[in-house]
């Protein structure tokens, strides 16, 4: 798969329309890499000129900040801002709501001011501008329930874009008991992804998976690599035959990309 870096592009004197911020999960985690690839396929198919930072990208600092390590967070943020500003980046799209939130809301005060899009928002724009067509009917009539990532939903009030994309697939969108501003976390946020859960009587991802399964879905749609991992684990635990797919994967799949 050919993916240009900003370094390569700028050495050719070119500037991409948008920078694709991949995030650590999207770069290193096997499940999340599939989401990254699906999104790249859509970008290519829509003829979007984009570039990635490659080795110049570093953790956004979100897990450090939510753990309480403001120092490490600012080190990461300032490093990244330095890289992004070197290339005069103006527009960024990312498939990770945590990176999205941090870049969009927490970088400006530190000198990093960009138009930051979550990929669901970006895809919606492509759809509106006609650059992206969703015509495949693979998911027509399929029951899809959508899990709101906390850092896209409550944290940034974006509930619509992912749902509109699912509806574009002519799928049957189902809402869980807790959804939108009342959504229940998958259990990964606040750096929980990187630690064992505290003592309790259940894991959060199991509770959320149960809520998802209560809608009797064919597919659980997610819009965050961490939610995806959590829900996939939950499904495995419940030994159910339901797939967990990212919005980007759904669209790439529908269009046979």
């Amino acid at each position: 798969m050919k993916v240009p870096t900003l370094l390569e592009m700028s050495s050719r004197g070119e500037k991409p329309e948008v920078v694709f911020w991949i995030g650590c999960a999207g770069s290193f985690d096997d499940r999340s890499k599939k989401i990254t690839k699906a999104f790249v396929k859509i970008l290519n198919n829509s003829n979007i000129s984009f570039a990635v930072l490659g080795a110049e990208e570093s953790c956004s600092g979100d897990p450090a900040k939510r753990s309480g390590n403001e120092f490490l967070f600012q080190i990461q943020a300032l490093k990244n801002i330095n890289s992004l500003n070197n290339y005069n980046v103006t527009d960024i799209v990312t498939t990770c709501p945590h990176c999205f939130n941090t870049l969009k809301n927490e970088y400006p005060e530190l000198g990093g001011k960009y138009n930051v899009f979550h990929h669901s928002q970006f895809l919606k724009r492509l759809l509106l501008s006609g650059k992206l067509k969703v015509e495949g009917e693979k998911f027509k009539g399929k029951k899809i329930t959508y899990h709101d990532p906390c850092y896209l939903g409550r944290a940034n009030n974006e509930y619509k874009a992912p749902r509109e994309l699912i509806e574009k697939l002519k799928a049957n969108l189902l809402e869980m008991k807790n959804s939108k501003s009342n959504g229940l976390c998958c259990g990964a946020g606040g750096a929980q992804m990187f630690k064992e859960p505290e003592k309790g009587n259940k894991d959060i991802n199991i509770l959320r998976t149960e809520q998802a399964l209560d809608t009797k879905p064919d597919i659980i749609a997610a819009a965050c690599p961490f939610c995806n991992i959590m829900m996939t684990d939950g499904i495995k635990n419940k030994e159910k035959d339901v797939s967990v797919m990212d919005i980007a994967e759904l669209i790439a799949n529908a269009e046979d990309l």
Partner: protein
Amino acid sequence: MDILPNLLFSFILILAFYFFVNNIYKLYKNISLGKSVNRSDNRKKRILNMLCVAFGQSKMGAKPIAGILHIIVYVGFIIINIELLEIVVDGILGTHRIFADYMGELYNYLIGSFEILALLVLISVIFFWARRNILKIERFWKPEMKNWPKKDADLILYFEFIIMTLFLLMNSTDSLLQDNNYEGYVKAGFFPISDLLKPLFVSFDINYLFILERSFWWMHIILIFIFLNYLYYSKHLHILLAFPNTYYANLNIKGMFDIDKNITNEVKLMLGFENSNDQNDQVPDKFGASDVFDLNWVQLMNSYSCTECGRCSSVCPANLTGKKLSPRKIMMDTRDRLEEVGSNIFKNKGKFVSDNKQLLNNYITKEELWACTSCNACVEACPIEIDPLSIIMDMRKYLVMEKSEAPVDLNNMMSNIENNGAPWPFNNQDRMLWTKENN
């Protein structure tokens, strides 16, 4: 004319206000122990927010039954306060229903509507009590709701019940005295509800009736004075603090956490980015919060405003899965500790003398703090825009930046970020490996 009752009333009135002002002053003092935070921007938006959320109770609709009952009690109490004004004036001057003279027919309708409201409040209070004690709605029976918080919640309902009942009894006997042209009891007011209580008293001797009416009148107003001074010790303080609480709420989008600008220059210098000419950089002498002094005053005000309704904890993913964390408890602990610190300072004549306790560990444990997913569900659910998450985050900051007491896994994650720029032990140079993998 015997002026003894008037003097007595004035004395009680002054006493009640003296204690009330004293309580407010204590409240102000304690809240001022918090650090400064600038919330003076955006005045229009803040006023609007306060009108919507505190006055209009826009967030109570999320639970419709509780929302409607709450609105009735709230409106009831506010409107019946107009009557309270008259009672106070009557008490000082020794008059009977003094407003009637000035308001004519309108007065009758006002009193009539107060009575209907009083009945609705009574019914709502019974419903509230039943929800807590018969239906045993889960959020009212969590571990942090034992002892005083439970008693407090019930006491408030008893207060309201008795005050409203006395109001109706007072009106009922008053109207009987009016019917009998008892001296000093001018004809004034419609009594649609308390008329129904008249059969209880018709057979009474008129002088005895007079004593009854006076007793109800005195008990009613004294109970209100007591209730006024009870507020400070109760979750009921929210009827006052909900207003400043929503006015000074954090207006930023929920995902945006505070950035500590005090360390930015130091980090920049460390990274060799620029020679900072800003020498005024005040690196704080303590990061994060381990006690109430380290929190800002809005967080402290939040703790006094908390209604202990538990909406936050009932949507908290950690609490729902049996973890110790309860955002309501975070707020209750903060208030309890602040009270403790406040009386310590009072006892020691204006100076805090260490009691070898702090908010961290003595009240809020690390286990609670590390259970939070920072999902913002609690913040979203709170009907008066309290932010328990900000306290959790400040305390985590203290644990990590001052004590290096993060769970081992998180320490590993952070050293991975430090060394490789990713939370996992992967080499940063390998960020593009995925482009070379098939599938």
